């Protein structure tokens, strides 16, 4: 039986149901403790080095403080959260082998249908574990690896150990430490040298449990001259209590390789979404983050690109929509560590119904990074007087011959535009939606078709009635 929590679920959030049929087979007492870590390591059968890494990370988490600038996170009650819960015993690679009650949830979310689309692989995580992971045979034959991160550690220990926590060590920030202590699920992707994975690998993350912490960990290694596009979507039930999603995503783009990572995050408005995403890019490699933040109570996320090799390119396309009760603190970090690198940040945010959207960005050019170029554009659209938008750009330029361009704009839906469009017979609400969709179009056009359609749908729903 599934229950729609109607008292709290806004009618526009169709993913807000929770399925009571899904029972945790493994669940630990609330709170972030060393006992929970030992339990997880036992259940997962992990090597000792990982157990030690987790314990060390928990100590770091407990000691770490939040930076003063971090928005609105003081009220998180870490003791009320459950740090590991799994409704499955083992990840399946056939859809039929996924437990029926979980399949039902994914059916409702339309995920099973996803696989019929043009995908190279599909993964589905529920709470702490990956219920499903499968990859097209043609890709598997070329040596492409697409597994849950846990399986990746077991089946490919060398690649795993060489890269795991190398770009984001647990010391990096409080939530990276938290993830490092309790990580579970997520994807492990390896694209061998020269292999172009021209259809996306897609993963859907679902939280079902209440007051829960999801800590998936994703590690992607694109070897020399390879290409891959990884796409993730997220949603959660609507509860009156808060949940935590603190993921870590590490990507290694080797020489001349290219990786695109697309996120469409549509968490319910009781989820704190605190994610660290970082890519190390080597000579002439290209990393592109396409980051869509449409849901959550708070999002704190700045996908970053560290350009370590000459001629690397980094790109972040960031789209945030802050509706009632949301604060999207999103942005990007571009760190130049080598000569002749280029980067571009293009951020668009919309705030309506009292929502708040902030762009926070860092451009750091180190002394050895000569002759680099970076372009930053951030545009905000504010739909009503109760909503808010802020921009916090930081530039630290130590390299020579560096070109930095920064442009920012704040706008509202103008009366002139509305009059013009309606004077052609277009209804006012359609005109507003045209203007809003036009505003985000430069980013939406970069998305896979079905995501673009979904984003337009979600934003139109969120913005309904927000321009008086």
């Amino acid at each position: 039986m599934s229950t729609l929590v109607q008292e709290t679920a806004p009618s526009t959030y169709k993913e807000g149901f929770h399925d009571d049929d899904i029972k945790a087979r493994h669940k630990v007492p609330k709170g972030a403790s060393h006992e929970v870590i030992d339990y997880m390591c036992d259940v997962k059968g992990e090597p000792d080095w990982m157990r030690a890494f987790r314990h060390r990370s928990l100590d770091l988490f407990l000691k770490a403080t939040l930076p003063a600038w971090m928005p609105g996170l003081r009220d998180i009650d870490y003791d009320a959260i459950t740090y590991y819960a799994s409704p499955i015993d083992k990840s399946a690679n056939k859809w039929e082998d996924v437990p029926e009650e979980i399949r039902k949830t994914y059916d409702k979310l339309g995920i099973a249908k996803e696989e019929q689309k043009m995908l190279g692989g599909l993964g589905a995580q529920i709470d702490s574990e990956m219920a499903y992971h499968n990859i097209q045979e043609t890709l598997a034959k070329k040596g492409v690896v697409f597994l849950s991160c846990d399986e990746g550690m077991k089946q490919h220990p060398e690649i795993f150990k060489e890269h795991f926590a190398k770009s984001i060590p647990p010391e990096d920030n409080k939530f990276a430490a938290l993830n490092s202590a309790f990580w579970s699920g997520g994807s492990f992707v390896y694209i061998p040298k020269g292999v172009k994975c021209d259809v996306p690998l897609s993963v859907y993350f679902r939280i079902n449990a209440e007051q829960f912490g999801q800590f998936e960990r994703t590690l992607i290694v694109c070897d020399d001259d390879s290409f891959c596009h990884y796409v993730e979507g997220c949603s959660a039930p609507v509860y009156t209590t808060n949940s935590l999603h603190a993921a870590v995503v590490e990507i290694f783009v080797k020489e001349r390789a290219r990786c695109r990572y697309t996120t469409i995050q549509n968490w319910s408005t009781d989820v704190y979404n605190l994610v660290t995403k970082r890519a190390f890019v080597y000579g002439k490699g290209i990393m592109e983050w396409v980051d869509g933040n449409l849901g959550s109570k708070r999002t704190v996320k700045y996908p970053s690109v560290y350009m370590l090799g000459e001629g690397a390119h980094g790109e972040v396309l960031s789209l945030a929509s802050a509706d009632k009760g949301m604060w999207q603190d999103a942005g990007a970090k571009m760190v130049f560590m080598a000569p002749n690198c280029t980067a571009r940040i293009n951020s668009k945010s919309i705030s309506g119904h009292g929502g708040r959207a902030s762009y926070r960005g860092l451009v750091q050019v180190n002394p050895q990074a000569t002759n680099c170029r970076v372009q930053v554009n951030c545009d905000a659209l504010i739909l009503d007087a109760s909503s808010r938008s802020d921009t916090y750009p930081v530039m630290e330029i130590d390299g020579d011959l560096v070109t930095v361009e920064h442009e920012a704009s704040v706008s509202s839906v103008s009366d002139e535009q509305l009059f013009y469009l309606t004077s052609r017979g277009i209804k006012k609400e359609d005109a507003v939606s045209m203007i809003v969709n036009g505003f985000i179009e430069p980013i939406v056009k970069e998305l896979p078709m079905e995501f673009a359609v979904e984003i337009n749908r979600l934003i139109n729903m969120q913005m309904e009635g927000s321009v008086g």
Partner: protein
Amino acid sequence: MTDSLEIIDLHAKIEEREILKGLNLTIRKGEVHAIMGPNGSGKSTLANTIAGNPKYTVTSGEIRMNGENILGMEVDERARKGLFLAFQYPCEVPGVRTSNFLRLACNARAGKELDVMEFYDKLEKKMKHLEINDAFMKRYLNEGFSGGEKKRNEILQMMMLEPEYAVMDETDSGLDIDALKIVSEGVNKLRGPNLGVLIITHYERILRYIKPDFIHILVGGKIVKSGGADLAAHLEEHGYDWITKDVTPTPVSA
């Protein structure tokens, strides 16, 4: 009266300033009227008030389209009923493709989803008339368009929407002579028994290419003189001074 756009004793203001002070005008289908007047006489206010721009308030009077008072109608409803305003300053709408916008507008005007192929066939033809190249349609609405391109886009919309009454607000301003000829030809093609046109202009120039049936002179928010096409030539020669002196004892402030 059916088959006409009637403006009856219209008073309108913007903010607290009264601009139109009892304007009367009837445009029958098949007729082309021109309103000329000096700066500040209320020309743009008239255009915006007919279209229903919420910035302007009608304080008294009526506007009837085919016998129906349209003052209570929203902007979009007036447009769907067959009213069209060619803007003096068409605004830019970033990210909205001109073709998508036109298709939505045409669907709204038709009250149904039009056949896509038919729509594009028609669009292609009209674009040829106006010497607009194909790349234009993929561009975002008016964004980065030159003054001439914007005005052509207005006439293209008019051709696609097939209004019953069209108000053209200083369409000639900012056009070079070649563009003016093309735009005028476009309007002339539309002329016929099913369309009433109101051309609002400061200069007589456009009236050499679009011959109006009637010319009215607007001063101080009222029509002070009406006549045939020859009135334009007279204005060109003598300016507005002879009328303002003749008719309005107080200087025009608006």
